[in-house]
């Protein structure tokens, strides 16, 4: 398990691994929003939490179709499936590696990009906290989607369609927590719900993804 985790990290960080793709996309979206909205700092302040959350979600989505497809194409997934590692564990570990290489950089970059969107000072802490709580769920749901579409050529479109509805609760409560904090309200309730969704996803999704993968490998 640990070997698989570190192999995935090494592969992501080396040339052609796609590390930074999500981060660069996040950066581009957030930098372009002020240009498209125009120089209205009050409006930007208002939409900043939502834009940051949406940008992070789409950036996460962007790298999902390679999550299992690479291992499928070079045959490593078949070999892993016949190894002592359970498929549920394989998917969970790969989702964890995906979070470390995609979700974590987004969490760390969000406060810096918040400045560009004129985010209210009171919102920074909760924005980072909500992203840190929510992005693991995005990676794990994404891994489930990747397991569903593994083996389909150019399955990215199907993957997005399958995964986006499952992302909605996380987006609603994550953005809501950040918005409430930015407006000086108490963000505790949406944060608790966000954490609850993430925990449920982390508990259930590896088993769903493992079962789906077992069918898809046949």
């Amino acid at each position, binding site marked *: 398990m640990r070997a698989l985790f570190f192999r995935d990290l090494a*592969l992501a960080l080396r040339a*052609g691994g796609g590390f930074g793709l999500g981060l660069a996309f996040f950066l581009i979206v957030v930098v372009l929003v002020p240009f498209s909205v125009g120089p209205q700092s009050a409006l930007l302040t208002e939409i900043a939490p939502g834009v940051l959350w949406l940008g992070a979600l789409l950036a996460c989505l962007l790298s999902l179709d390679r999550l299992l497809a690479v291992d499928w194409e070079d045959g490593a997934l078949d070999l892993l499936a*016949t190894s*002592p590692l359970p498929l549920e564990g394989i998917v969970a570990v790969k989702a964890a590696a995906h979070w470390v290489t995609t979700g974590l950089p987004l969490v760390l970059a969000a406060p810096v990009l918040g400045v560009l969107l004129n985010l209210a000072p009171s919102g920074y802490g909760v924005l980072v906290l909500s992203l840190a709580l929510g992005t693991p769920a995005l990676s794990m749901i994404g891994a489930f989607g990747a397991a569903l579409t593994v083996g389909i050529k150019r399955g990215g479109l199907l993957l997005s369609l399958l995964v986006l509805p499952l992302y909605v609760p996380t987006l609603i409560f994550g953005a809501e927590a950040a918005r409430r904090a930015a407006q000086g309200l108490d963000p505790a309730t949406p944060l608790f719900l966000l954490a609850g969704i993430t925990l449920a996803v982390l508990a259930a999704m590896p088993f769903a993804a493992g079962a789906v993968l077992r069918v898809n490998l*046949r």
Partner: protein
Amino acid sequence: MELKVTDLAVGRGGVPVLAGVSFSLTTGQALVLRGPNGSGKTTLLRTVAGLQVPMAGQVHRAEDRIAYAAHADGLKAALTVAENLRFWASVFGQSDIAPALAAFDLEDLVERRAGQLSAGQKRRLGLARLMVTGRDVWVLDEPTVSLDTASVALFADAVRGHLAHGGSALMATHIDLGIEAETLDVSGFRAAAAQMASADEAFL
């Protein structure tokens, strides 16, 4: 008894390919599957390896005894030869990769990225993976593809060594490895065509 297959029927995409296949494999024994392209050798091997479920019949195998090697080697182009091999060794709970490197003459290539290897070198690395699994039953699908004569000899030596140490091997291959092995021609087990009976698969 390492592996026993009784009255096995296998299919690909819900269509039966082979039916009534029975064989057994004991310690120190090698069994070579033969048959023309598309006769179902790969499907049979995938079923034996546990990647597919049989349509009928049984595969008796001890848990976690099989090392499977497919057409694709599962190598990562961005990792070096040693890193690739070490990864598979640790997945299978082993640590020593030196004998595998020596057996397939890969010692000079340890620091080379797998993406820069030739097709034959990649294959050798893929086969060296078998030796770091520590598993008894090798299930090999066309192991000698893109190997030159010298490498085929290396592979035959590796298989012989594996058999001598109490392992066994089931392989689909078209060339004669010079190993004492029984042969099973799968073309005699072709399933009756177009019998889409139990289409209970979720994704065909």
